[in-house]
């Protein structure tokens, strides 16, 4: 068999086969959730599993939706996530710009501090931040969910990687023409690194939209709560029945906004990661 035949016909089809098998394995859990979400509860956990629902109970979705005030949670989740990410785009773009293009002292130290921020999980800072939020009178408010995240070490890190791919000469040319830094940022840097911004928006939206720990600690009432708390309510006690089918239905309607965002943004993601200077 010649190498040409291999390259053109055999190789791609072997790759295809492998990719299909891996993709099937990776998305099987989602398929299983979809089946479970329409089945009666006692049909969810059976072996062998149902590859087709034994019965279709769309009422699971209605019941799941009513199990918690999901309407309010939806609005809150979307609002909080957008507010955080909107703020992060601005703060991170400014910081990454300064760390990349502006000549200033202590840059190494400041970047090191950003890296330290990147390494600190939210379980670490929750107690001190809680005490701060209390002093500010912000417990159980949107502020407590949004403001602590307006600075994002990860965002600065990501954008800085991407900004570094812009030739410094381009910036200098603009500067010599008298453009102030903010105009260079908006006019040259942002348009040239759009995929990196989209990547930042997608990754951090996913993270904050799905976060359970923080909203659970900082909110007490439904008017400011977010979707993952609704998910948590299906498991409040060992002594009650866990409605697996409703939980799966809730999974389905909770994940939709992020799937949509991801779907529309995904062709930029590869570019976004390419442009973060990883190549």
């Amino acid at each position, binding site marked *: 068999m010649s190498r040409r035949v291999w390259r053109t016909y055999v190789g791609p089809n072997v*790759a295809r086969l492998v990719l299909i098998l891996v993709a099937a394995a990776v998305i099987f859990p989602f398929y299983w959730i979809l089946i479970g979400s329409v089945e009666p509860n006692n049909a969810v956990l059976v072996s062998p599993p149902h590859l087709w629902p034994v019965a279709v109970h769309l009422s699971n979705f209605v019941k799941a939706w009513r199990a918690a005030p999901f309407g309010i949670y939806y609005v809150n989740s979307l609002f909080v996530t957008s507010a955080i990410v909107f703020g992060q785009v601005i703060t991170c773009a400014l910081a990454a710009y300064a760390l990349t293009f502006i000549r200033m002292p202590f840059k190494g130290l400041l970047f090191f501090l950003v890296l330290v921020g990147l390494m600190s999980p939210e379980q670490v800072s929750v107690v001190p931040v809680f005490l701060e939020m209390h002093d500010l009178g912000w417990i159980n408010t949107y502020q407590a969910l949004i403001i602590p995240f307006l600075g994002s070490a990860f965002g600065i890190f990501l954008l800085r990687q991407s900004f570094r791919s812009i030739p410094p000469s381009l910036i200098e040319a603009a500067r010599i023409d008298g453009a102030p830094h903010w105009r260079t940022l908006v006019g040259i840097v942002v348009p040239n690194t759009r995929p990196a911004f989209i990547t930042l928006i997608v990754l951090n939206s996913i993270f904050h939209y799905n976060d359970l720990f923080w909203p659970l600690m900082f909110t007490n009432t439904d008017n400011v709560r977010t979707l993952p708390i609704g998910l948590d309510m299906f498991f409040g006690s060992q002594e009650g029945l866990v409605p697996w089918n409703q939980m799966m239905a809730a999974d389905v309607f909770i994940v939709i906004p992020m799937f949509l965002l991801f779907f529309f943004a995904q062709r930029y993601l590869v570019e976004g990661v390419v442009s973060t200077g990883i190549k």
Partner: protein
Amino acid sequence: MGSPGPGPQTVTVRRRRRRSSYQTREALTGFLFLSPSFVFLTAFVFIPLLYLMYVSQLHWNLISTSSYVGLNNYAHLFHDAYFTSTVRNTIVFTAGVMVLTLPTAFAAAFLLNMRLRERTFYRSAFLAPYVFPLVASGIVWTLMLQPQEGVVNWFLSLFGIAGPPWLNSGTWAMVAIVLVTSWQYFGFYTLIFLSGLQGVPRDVLEAADVDGVSGARRIWSVTLPMMSSSLFFATVILVIQSFQVFTQVFVMTGGGPDSATTTIVFYLYQEAFQFFQMGTAATVAVLLLMSLVVLTLLQLLASRRWVYYES
């Protein structure tokens, strides 16, 4: 004494002055640009960290009066076999996730880079778990890994394999958590490697071909070095992400069975909120952060030896 005008020396001084005032302005703009981020990072990351350093020297349950114990919490932790085991678990977990995720993600990226027509489909499929809430996937996998009724063991039984007890056994519970984490992150790292691969110039690969270097050898000696910076990025991020593992443990095993899957952040959480030992929890937090900083610096140093940056 009449002077015709500014002599050459004066010009230099003035220029220097202008330059230095320019530099000052530049620096000020720089700090101005950094200030929004640093206001928030200082208030909600750095001050809390300093506060934790202070709390790590206390014996305190968060609601009673505290007592100052100096470095006792540190000394205590170093002699605590339980803490050592959580460190060991975290390292095993991190190593497991890396061994499982990085090669598979690289292989998947390599296949995706063959530019099949339907590659968008595979890419979306691989990334789907990354979009899913960890809380939900932890619960769903717990159900799928049930030894008797679970889907996974049913699948294994089709091949005549008696499935392991998964979450019932210390060893297998760790394997399960590693598996679920890799499932969640696999697509993200595939994406990073894919972008790395796309950055490898075709002509370099073709030149290698002409030289008779192909197949596995070409991957090993040409492709991998050319994309070493994305390997580096992936390793750094994955190490940090794995060291911070919490939700999977919280949802799937609660640190058990026994303490087989108690990782550092989960232990920190237990000490603070289940055992009422704020001081110990803060100490764990400080140690975790210090080790991550050291680890990342080591990786940075090592990277100078093997990472190739296209310039």
